[in-house]
Each structure stands twice: as C-alpha cells, then as structure tokens.
C-alpha cells in the first residue's frame, strides 16, 4: 500500500465540500505534496482532514519578504527563471502552511493572507494539538485565527509590544525593547471553583537544573483536577535571528533550538536546506548522521529512564543510567568532538569524519552497553516497588494521543507506532530496517518500556550502520539556493518527529526557518494524562513525557 493512497479520497472529500484546492508543484516540498487553498477554506479543509484521520504535523506562517508567492510563479522560481515578480506592486502577504501526515505520506496545505488583514479560520477546533502552534503563530506574525478557542497570548509574554509582530519585516532583528521586561504576572489561568479546591503554582524556576516553565495545578486534596502549563520563558527569537543567515549559520542555529536534540534538529534543518537546493549529502555523511542521531537517542533515553526512576525515589537505577550515559557522552566527545555532538552536522554533510579505528571502539561500546543495560532494564521492568508507582500512572489513551498528534515515545506508548525513520524513510534509513516499539498501555511504565526497547533497537541499527559504513566524501558544498527556494526537513528525533521548514531569500540567505519540535504536541498530552493522578506523581509523569521547553519556546 502506498503512502499516499488516502490522497484521492481526501481530494474527493474536499471537492464534495466545494473547497477549492489546487495541487502545486510536487517537487518543491518533497517528500510532501502541496495543496494550495483559499484562505476561507482553511478551517473546512482541516475538518475534512480530521474526519478521515490525518495527523496534523504543525502550522506555521511566513511573513518575510516575498512570502506567499502564487503557486504558479513558484515553479518558475525554482526552475531559476527570473520571473517578473515586483514586490512593489504585489501586495505583501503572509503565507500560512499546515503539514498533514497519514501512513507516512505528507501533505502541506498552503494559503496566503494579505498583510493588512491577516485573518484565517482556525484549525484548532478540529485539531486540539494545534492550539499553541496557532497562538505562537499569531504572536509572531500577527495572523488572526478566527474561531480559535483560546484568545490568550502564548509566546509573547511582555517582551514586545502587544501590536508588534517580530517575524514581520518591519520588526528589527535586535528587537525594540531595551532594559527590563515586565513580569508576565497577569496571565489568566483557568481556575476550578469549589470547596476544598486549591491552586498550586509551580515554577517557572524549579529546584532541579531544568528549564523554566510554569505549571498551575488545581487540586483537591492530593488529586489533580486540572493542570495548565505556561511556557515561553526561554523564547530566544530563533525564528527571527535565523533571517538572513547563510546555510552554515542556520545549521549552527538549528543546533541550538534544543540542546538535547541538537543532532536531530541540525539534521532536519540541513535536510530542508539540501532539499531546497537539490543537493544530496554523500552516503558516508548520511550514515554518520544516522549514527549520531542514534547515539543521541540512546543517551537521552538512558537519561530519561534514570530520571523517571529517580522521581519515584529509586536512585539505584538513576545512578546506573547516569553512569552509562556519561561514558556514552564521553565517547561522543572523543569521536565526534562534542558531548552532545553539537555542530557535528553541517549543510551538505558532516563536519568531521570518523577515524578508521573508531568502528571497533564503537562496537565494543555497544557490546558493553548491552551487557550493562539489559540486566538493569530487567530490574527496572520487573521491580515490584517500581511497578507499583509506574503502572497505571499518567495514562494517555490512544484516542487522546491521536487527537493531539503525539509522536515519539509518548505516541508509541499509547499505541501510535509512527516513526519517520520507518514510515517516511530518509537516507540512510531507506536502506535499513527500523523496528518501532509499540505499547498500548499508555502509562508511565509503557513509556519507560518504549525507551528501553528503542535503546536496544538503536544499538542494533548502529552496529549495522558501522558495518555498512560507505567510504567516500563526508561533505559536498551546498549549491547556491535559487531565490525563494523552500525545503521541508523531516527527521525522527528521540522525542519524535521533527519537521523543519526553510525558505531562502533572493540572496541565498535564509528568509524563514521554522523548526517544529515534537514537544508542541506532547506538552498538551501531559496536561491530559495528569488528570486524576495525585500531585506527587506529577514529576514522574512530566519526566516520562519529557517535553522540551526550549524547543517549543523557540
């Protein structure tokens, strides 16, 4: 069965609803297909998509110069034809994109709204996971999503004026405000009324060395009635400072979207740029990228498993995992130059080659990790005291996970075995067999089991990658980007699917960069899975989801 078997059905249903959808140049956002919609059909199209069960992989807007070029011209642009597009006469527009996925086939919906009146029907009523993405989009570009259930601002705390939108061309990259930013003290949290109901504010500064985020609990006794998250405290303006960068600079920036997913985010950004410039990395580079991505997955899963155990007071497992992870990261530093392998991937390839004797070293490492981790995982999996805490805790049903569009270990633990590496493979995974763990329990224990299985599968993959490592170049120079070239990067990071959109400007610099971390969909999952649990179980639920603050705050 092909990955796009559902597309004719979707198009037929759109037609039945009298929604005007034009298929646009396919190659532009490969592997995704493109469909250009009228702005007024934006919400209705989402309704149709939700009805046939497509997963929403994110929405973003492009308000930079030259955005929203009509589809008919876009093809000419890519072909390098100097199309006569005079920005002076063309009213400036904001292009809005939405990415859908089903059975490994991707589809990007596009539309454009005039800058003077950027109004678009919201897709959130049909896709609850989009709630914060649309609010983020509004905060940064000013697109008003009509019918959005939540009018509160999300990413903008108080750092810029209420009517200013940083991603528009009239906003300086350095920002306007100087000095202290007022506290975002009057965010209206939803409260629960009733006798015996009380509120617990937690954060944004936490006791451990973690990132800032505010959690507002409504609790009765020890039971959580409602949890609301408030993020955005580490908004760094990634999307704005990406503008005008060269590909090298963008890769470095992407590496800093989220430190623990630095390999996956850099890969996604580089993949997007390489697709935009029709330039493929040499096979050896692909293999090395995959090796690093799997190393990142193993390191983070080890850390997560240990942290989950530590949160229920089982520090033995925490210490063992910390030890294994530390040895692992030291090896990464030795062979790839950085503990987290930051900046090891660059446009067109990888920054440094693996030495000849590294293969033996790595294979010995994999054996050692297996020897240490498998007995440890047996202990964790079959420890009555741990099971008592982890089983049934923080349950996320398959329906909830699907509704929000969760990927990664959260989705896999709730019965959604989607993995970009298997379902929409990119080199080198198209040459490898990726086994994706799937659990149906949806509790913390299931999320731990998914991580334990993924570590073992990653070890198998890495052994195979080392054995089949091609020789040859590790890097090719990126071709100059055609003006307005766009590309979509789709990579499976250890948290789940990372989708990165890149558009070049007319000088070969970056006009728009949007990295969509999987945390956009797992943070709301945390709000749902904590309901009915007790307050002291929140840390372990939170750790089992492990959303990225930085990746969502951008």
């Amino acid at each position, binding site marked *: 069965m092909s990955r796009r078997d559902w597309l004719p059905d979707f198009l037929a249903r759109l037609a039945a609803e009298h929604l005007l959808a034009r298929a646009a140049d396919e190659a532009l956002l490969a592997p995704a297909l493109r469909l250009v919609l009228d702005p007024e059909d934006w919400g209705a199209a989402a309704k149709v998509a939700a009805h046939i069960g497509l997963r929403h992989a994110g929405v973003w807007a492009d308000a930079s110069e030259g955005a929203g070029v009509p589809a008919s011209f876009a093809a000419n642009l890519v072909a390098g034809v100097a199309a006569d597009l005079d920005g002076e006469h063309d009213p400036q527009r904001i292009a809005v994109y939405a990415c859908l996925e089903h059975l490994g086939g991707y589809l990007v919906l596009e539309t454009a709204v005039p800058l003077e009146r950027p109004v678009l029907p919201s897709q959130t009523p049909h896709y609850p996971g989009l709630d914060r993405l649309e609010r983020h989009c509004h905060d940064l570009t000013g697109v008003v999503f009509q019918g959005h259930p939540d009018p509160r601002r999300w990413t903008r705390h108080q750092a810029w004026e209420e009517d200013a939108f940083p991603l528009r061309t009239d906003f300086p990259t350095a920002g306007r405000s100087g000095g202290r930013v007022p506290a975002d003290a009057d965010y209206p949290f939803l409260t629960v009324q009733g006798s015996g109901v009380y509120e617990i504010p937690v954060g944004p500064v936490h006791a451990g060395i973690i990132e800032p985020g505010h959690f507002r609990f409504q609790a009765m006794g020890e039971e959580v009635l409602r949890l609301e998250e408030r993020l955005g405290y580490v908004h760094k303006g990634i999307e704005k400072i990406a503008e005008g960068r060269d590909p090298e600079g963008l890769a470095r920036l992407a590496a800093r979207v989220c430190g623990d997913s630095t390999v996956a985010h850099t890969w996604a950004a580089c993949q997007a740029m390489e697709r935009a410039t029709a330039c493929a990395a040499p096979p050896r580079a692909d293999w090395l990228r995959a090796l690093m991505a799997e190393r990142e997955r193993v390191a983070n899963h080890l850390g997560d498993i240990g942290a989950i155990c530590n949160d*229920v*007071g089982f*520090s033995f497992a925490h210490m*063992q995992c910390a030890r294994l992870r530390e040895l692992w990261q030291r090896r990464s530093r030795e062979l790839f130059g950085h503990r987290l392998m930051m900046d090891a991937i660059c446009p067109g390839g990888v920054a440094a080659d693996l030495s000849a004797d590294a293969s033996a070293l790595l294979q010995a490492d994999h054996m050692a990790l297996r020897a240490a981790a498998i007995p440890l995982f047996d202990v964790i999996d079959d420890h009555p*005291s741990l099971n008592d805490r982890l089983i049934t805790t923080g349950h996320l049903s398959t329906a909830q996970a699907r509704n929000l569009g969760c990927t990664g270990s959260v989705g896999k633990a709730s019965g959604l075995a989607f993995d970009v590496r298997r379902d929409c493979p990119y080199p080198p995974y198209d040459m490898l067999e990726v086994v994706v763990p799937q659990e149906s329990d949806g509790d913390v224990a299931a999320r731990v089991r998914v991580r334990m299985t993924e570590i073992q599968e990653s070890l198998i993959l890495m052994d195979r990658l080392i054995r089949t490592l091609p020789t040859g170049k590790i890097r090719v120079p990126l071709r100059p980007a055609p003006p307005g070239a766009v590309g979509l990067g789709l990579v499976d990071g250890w948290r789940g699917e990372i989708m990165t959109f890149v558009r070049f400007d007319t000088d070969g610099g970056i006009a728009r960069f949007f990295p969509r971390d999987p945390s956009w969909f797992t943070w709301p999952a945390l709000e749902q899975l904590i309901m009915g649990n007790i*307050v*002291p179980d929140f840390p372990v639920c939170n750790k089992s989801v492990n959303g990225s603050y930085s990746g969502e705050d951008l």
Partner: protein
Amino acid sequence: MDHYLTLPGWGIAFVQSFLYIALAPLLVGWVRKVKARLQNRRGAPLLQAYRDLYKLLAKEVRVAHTASPLFRAAPYIVFTATWMAAATVPLLVVDLPTAAIADIIVLVGLLALARVFLALAGMDVGTAFGGMGASREMMIGALAEPAMLMAVFTLTMTAHSTNLSSVIDQHLADGFMLRPSYLFALGGLVLVAIAETGRIPVDNPTTHLELTMIHEAMLLEYSGRHLAMMEWAAQIKLLLYGTLIANVFLPWGIGRGVSAAALGLGLAAVLAKLAVLGVALAVGETVLAKMRIFRAPAFLNLALLLSLLGLLSHVILEVGA
C-alpha cells in the same frame, strides 16, 4: 529509681545529650555513604553532613516578608524538643536521671511538639509547598503516633514501667529471651521510625521535587542557621529512633553504672549497633522505590497492627508465664 538522680548520673546525662548532637550527622553521613556504595558510587566523605551544617550556620538567614515570629522561633523549638526527647533515650549507660524524670510518653509528646511547630512553620509563609508538606506530615503523624504508643506500651507492660531505663534494665535482667511481643513491637517501631524520620519508602530525604516532598517541603523557605537547626533536628531524630531500636530491643553492651569502662563499652556497642542499623536502612532505601503517598496509611496501619499484635501476644502468651 531515685538512685539514678546522682551527680555523676547527671554528668553522664549531660555528656550523653551532647553526644546525640555530635553523633547525629555522623549517622546520616554513614547511611549516605553506604547508599552511595550500594549504587556503585564513591559518595561524599563520611563527615560531609558536618560540613553542610557548618556551611549553613555560617550563611546569611533570609526570611520571607510574610513570615511571622513563629517562623523564626520554630527552628529552635523543633531542635530543642527533639534534643530533649533524645536526651531521655539511654545511649551509653542505662541509669539516666533524664529517663527517670521523663518516660516514653513524654518522649512521644516531645516529638509531637516538634512536629506541630514544624508543620506550623511550614504553613507560616503561606506557600503552597509548605502547606502541602504540613498536611502530609500531619497525616503521617496522626497515623504514626498511635502505632508508636502501642509499640511502647508493649514494652512497658513487660517492665511494668514507662521508664525507658527500667524497660532496658528488665530486658537485661531477663537475659536473651525471644519474646513474641518484642518481635512484633520491633516490627511496628521500625515501620514507625521509617515514616517518622522521612525515609524511603515513605518520604525521600534527597529529593529536589517540591511536589513529592513531605519533610523537606516544610523546610523550603528556610535558609542559613534556621535551616541548619531544622536539618540537625531531623538528624537527631534519626539517631534517636536508631538508638531506641538498638538499645531497647538489643540492649547488650550498654553500660550499667558510671565507670570509664562501662562508658567506653557502651559507646563501642551503640556505635556498632547503629552502624548495622544504618546499613540496613541504606539497603532498604536502595532496593525500594518511594510509595505513593496514599500507600503510607496502609504502611502505618501495618505498624499499628504489628504493635497491637505485640500487645495481644504479651497478654496471651507472656503474662503469668
């Protein structure tokens, strides 16, 4: 009983009560060290707990604007009450004037006093965490105290006295005898001790997660010497329970009378017993995860049940035997 109230007796009592203060961080350091070893870590030095206290004592005290005088007074009250309670538990020698003037029920009362002030201090500043910790602490306390009293009554029924010195004297006089009632009471007291001293599986003394804390949640607003007093009091409490278990159920080695030899032997014996108990605690904390908070009542009900069984088995099996 009057023979305890001699000048040398008071001298020993004085020395012993300061020994409690001096040794308490050592026991905590020992437990941490053994735990670290069990986790394949090297761990902090044995004396790290002393250094931490010294550091805290030297630090500036920051008090929240909303704090009442009670907040400032509580650390001293908690420390003193715990210390007074510890002074009534024979550490080196049996014959203690403090044990003569304050029996086990006073001990339980002093610990309850410390708990009340700890909980009040937790709520004083008005943060959510302090209030949560206080509410959880009171829940644990309300369940632990009856179990503790039951266990204590089992002991006192054998000795026909609520005086700890008399209980130990009686036990020593009887020689080694396997009393079912003592075994049950020991079980009950161990569970109570784990809950009362905030150890795994009831509470986690090393956690940084505010939402899961019991004891630590009430201390979150404390700093400097206030925090040092609170931490120290918790360490003394651990030593108190350790000594209570070691010297009441296994009193052999404890000094009788006031002589250098008796004191030396008593010190060596109690250190050895506490070291073994510390290892047992560390092993327990390593193999167990923390319970859900709603399991704590079941845990303490078990303690109460064991203590009650001790009491019953004393009445059924031992009275008149």
